[in-house]
């Protein structure tokens, strides 16, 4: 009996019309990849600003809760564009990506980013009375930096697996 492997599933996915078109295009693939990275840079600014505020290293003239609230929309927009581009990139080369350990670690880290958001939702990110310099805030910011550095590194490292 033949078991469906991750590579098989990836192959079926990347054979879909849109993914094949992206893979075989000369300009769409690099354009999507560049957009993915440019998004990281621009919207990474919102993450950087939030974390710096939580750590008390910058923007201390504004309450942390306000900084978080005002930057939320930007993070959502950035995240949606980044994920969309990421899906297109990974989907178009799914048979290679799904079995790539660095891609797998990256997806694991992405899951941890989601868990991080849920864990600190009540105490930090949706806490209107967030106390300045709270341990929860500092922990959330530090973990956020670590997770994003990991995502960035694993993203780059995908290209090094053969």
């Amino acid at each position: 009996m033949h078991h469906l492997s991750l590579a098989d599933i990836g192959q079926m996915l990347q054979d879909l019309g849109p993914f094949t078109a992206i893979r075989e295009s000369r300009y769409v693939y690099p354009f999507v990849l560049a957009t993915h990275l440019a998004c990281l840079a621009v919207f990474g600014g919102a993450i950087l600003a939030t974390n710096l505020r939580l750590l008390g290293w910058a923007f201390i003239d504004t309450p942390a809760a306000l900084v978080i609230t005002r930057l939320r929309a930007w993070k959502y927009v950035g995240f949606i564009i980044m994920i969309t581009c990421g899906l297109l990139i990974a989907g178009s080369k799914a048979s290679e990506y799904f079995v790539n350990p660095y891609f797998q670690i990256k997806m694991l880290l992405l899951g941890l980013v989601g868990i991080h958001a849920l864990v600190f939702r009540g105490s930090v990110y949706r806490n209107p009375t967030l106390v300045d310099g709270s341990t929860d805030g500092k922990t959330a910011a530090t973990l956020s930096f670590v997770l994003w550095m990991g995502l960035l590194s694993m993203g780059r490292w995908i290209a090094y697996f053969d």
Partner: protein
Amino acid sequence: MHPLIRHEWLYGLTECLHVLGFAIAIGSVAVVDLHLLGWGFSHGTTAGVARQTGPWTTLGITLAVLSGLVILSTDPGRYLSHPVMQAKFMTLGGAIIYNASVHGPIARGTPSRGLAMAVACVSLLLWTSLVFDGIFYAFT
């Protein structure tokens, strides 16, 4: 043989530092641009935000340029003669000059809404186009 070619992990690490550097640089500039566009997040003035993000922009550019030079040194002939990379160098020079002579003074002053928005849009375009240059270099 170039150390980065001999040790592939060193090449990867340098590329990671390059991405981290430009993410910090562009992200910290974008934070000021958000304020110029009127979507600010701080009670403080744009000048105050720019003053606080300035060191991060400098840190990010330094990291990106140094790691970029190391990557370039693996194959200087191809990098320096490639039209996309030449465009990237010119854009980088333009972006740094623009940041120091237009973006900075406008952020520290009291520009009209229209001028502030125009300055922010040009800034975002200049900095993000560097990312596109880098990727398109690798694909052409």
